[in-house]
């Protein structure tokens, strides 16, 4: 494996996204959304809210936005190049398929992380300049967790980009993934939970007891893992995620959640490499 080849491919991905102004557009969008949420996001609030409240307001938005941005960024990485014809030339060079795919992943990861850091970072600095209570650590955790969430979807989209033979199918797959993780799975999980717990007891004022399997189940949805991670590290942030409002078992820790997000990234990246190695171009 040659690092210079990987760096060249990663650099090209970044340059390509700078040239099509993708980085600028998304960074500005992140910054504007954060500022809007901070200024207008809380009911009954007046003017700038501190970073903690901003994070709470942003968390749900991020679970919708960041996955779709990562999916858009990566769904055509492989199949798009194959369809266009540029993959032929790339693979005819003295570079292995592994070097090519890791270079592409690192380049796109750089683009995504850069937009998140610049977008949320710039907005964070503006908010910090206008409020007295500034918790940079929490905001740093929020940005870090958001990057992890983005990388998960980048990795999944990269895999999708290797399994389909048409760009349009890969796009359909990416849209399905977004619905799956943001709409379908949360509803299914809540539905399953509702069928197993006794709501009458909860209505009578008893604390809700959520079975361990439910917490385990949420690990299969990266957006739930992301919300839970922010809850553990910062405080309750998501109304969508039941596990963030209820007592969790001891094993359901920040470390586990970070590990799960990393596992999502690694597993789907390995699957993408495996598929790409075997693909006829």
């Amino acid at each position, binding site marked *: 494996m040659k690092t210079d080849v990987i760096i*060249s491919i990663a650099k090209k991905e970044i340059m390509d996204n700078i040239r099509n102004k993708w980085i600028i557009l998304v960074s500005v969008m992140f910054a504007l959304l954060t500022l809007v949420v901070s200024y207008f996001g809380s009911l009954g609030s007046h003017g700038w809210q501190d970073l903690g409240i901003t994070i709470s307001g942003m968390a749900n938005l991020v679970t919708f936005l960041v996955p779709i941005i990562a999916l858009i960024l990566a769904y055509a990485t492989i199949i798009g190049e194959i369809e266009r014809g540029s993959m*032929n*030339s790339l*693979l005819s060079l*003295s*570079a292995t398929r592994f070097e090519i795919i890791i270079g592409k992943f690192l380049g796109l990861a750089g683009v995504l992380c850069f937009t998140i850091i610049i977008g949320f970072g710039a907005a964070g600095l503006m908010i910090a300049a206008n409020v007295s209570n500034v918790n940079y650590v929490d905001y740093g955790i929020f940005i870090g967790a958001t990057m992890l969430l983005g990388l998960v979807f980048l990795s999944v989209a990269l895999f999708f980009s290797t399994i389909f033979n048409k760009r349009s199918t890969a796009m359909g797959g990416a849209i399905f993934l977004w619905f799956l993780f943001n709409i379908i799975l949360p509803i299914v999980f809540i539905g399953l939970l509702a069928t197993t717990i006794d709501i009458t007891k909860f209505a009578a004022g008893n604390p809700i007891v959520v079975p361990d399997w439910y917490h385990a189940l949420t690990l299969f949805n990266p957006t739930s893992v992301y919300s839970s991670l922010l809850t553990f590290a910062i405080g309750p942030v998501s109304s969508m995620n039941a596990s963030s409002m209820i007592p969790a078992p001891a094993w359901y820790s920040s470390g586990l959640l970070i590990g799960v997000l990393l596992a999502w990234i690694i597993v789907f990246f390995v699957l993408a490499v495996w598929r790409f190695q075997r693909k*006829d171009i």
Partner: protein
Amino acid sequence: MATTLVKCLTCKTTITISGEPGEKIFLTCPQCNQKGAFTIPEEKSAKTIGTNSATIEVNGLTKSYNHFTAVNNVSFTVNKGEIFGFLGPNGAGKTTTIKSMLDLIHANKGTIKINGIDVRSHGKEAKKYVGYMPEKVAFYDNLTALQNLRFYAEIKHAPKEECIHLIEEFGLGDTGKKRVGKFSKGMVQRLGMARAILGTPPILILDEPSGGLDPRGVVLIRDKILEMKKKGTTIFVSSHILSEIQEICDRVGIINKGVLVAQDTVDGLSKKLNLKPQITVTVGSLSAKIENAVKNLPGVDSVKTQGNTLEIVCDGAMKAKVILAISTAGGNIQNLQTKEPSLEEVFMRYTEV
């Protein structure tokens, strides 16, 4: 059967000839039409351009998709410094073969070696020697020509200054900051050729290099191919422009329905098909004496007359004797045209249903 390279004594063009050791081969230089003969030496035949000096070796290549066999047991060798034309109708398996040679497609059976290195197991090493121009040339549309070439130069470890030189050479010097996405098809094709020769690779694999080019572009690409050959580059070229292939290639391979049906020099293939040159001679006054003098020559297949013109089909080696016979019989030759068997005829014969 042995294959060897000979140089034309007049114009120094390298010509590939095939034959049995000790066999005398009569040949005509494709560049200057100088005629000559060459006997394949016994000693050299033992070292004929084979495994050790071969640049591209394809052996038993087979690629199937479900129940469809796109390429079936294809074997050929492209020798160092030669231009090998790869021909076939649409869907015959040309691109599948080329893609397999670069491991873009994983073959079901067979071996492919580039400079003796197995492409399947040591692809990265083998591909160091190759410059490739695909049928569908594509670049990164958001980048300029220079940015694109610099990216490929980085991976090829080619000097970056070469990129500017190549862009100028291929007439793209004035594109500046224009994105490749805004280029015409011809411009993209020229940039594709520039990318293929970037770093002066010892082997060039060109899949329809002239597709979509205007006549000036076709000439530019053809001249570049010949220039690369002069530098010793081995060139494998697939094209539908048969006249061009005949003009530039030392040998050709013809693939039809996934099977390599022929490979040899164009002359060699013509000989195998018993295709003969046609001589058209116009004389001042055509007489029966002249006609009979030609008809009675051995090696003359047919003689047709039209007005004062004779159309003669004969063995290649008999052309001079035919002209001499016409002169001796009192024919005052006013016009003389020779038409060698064309690659088109060869192609049509080998690919007919």
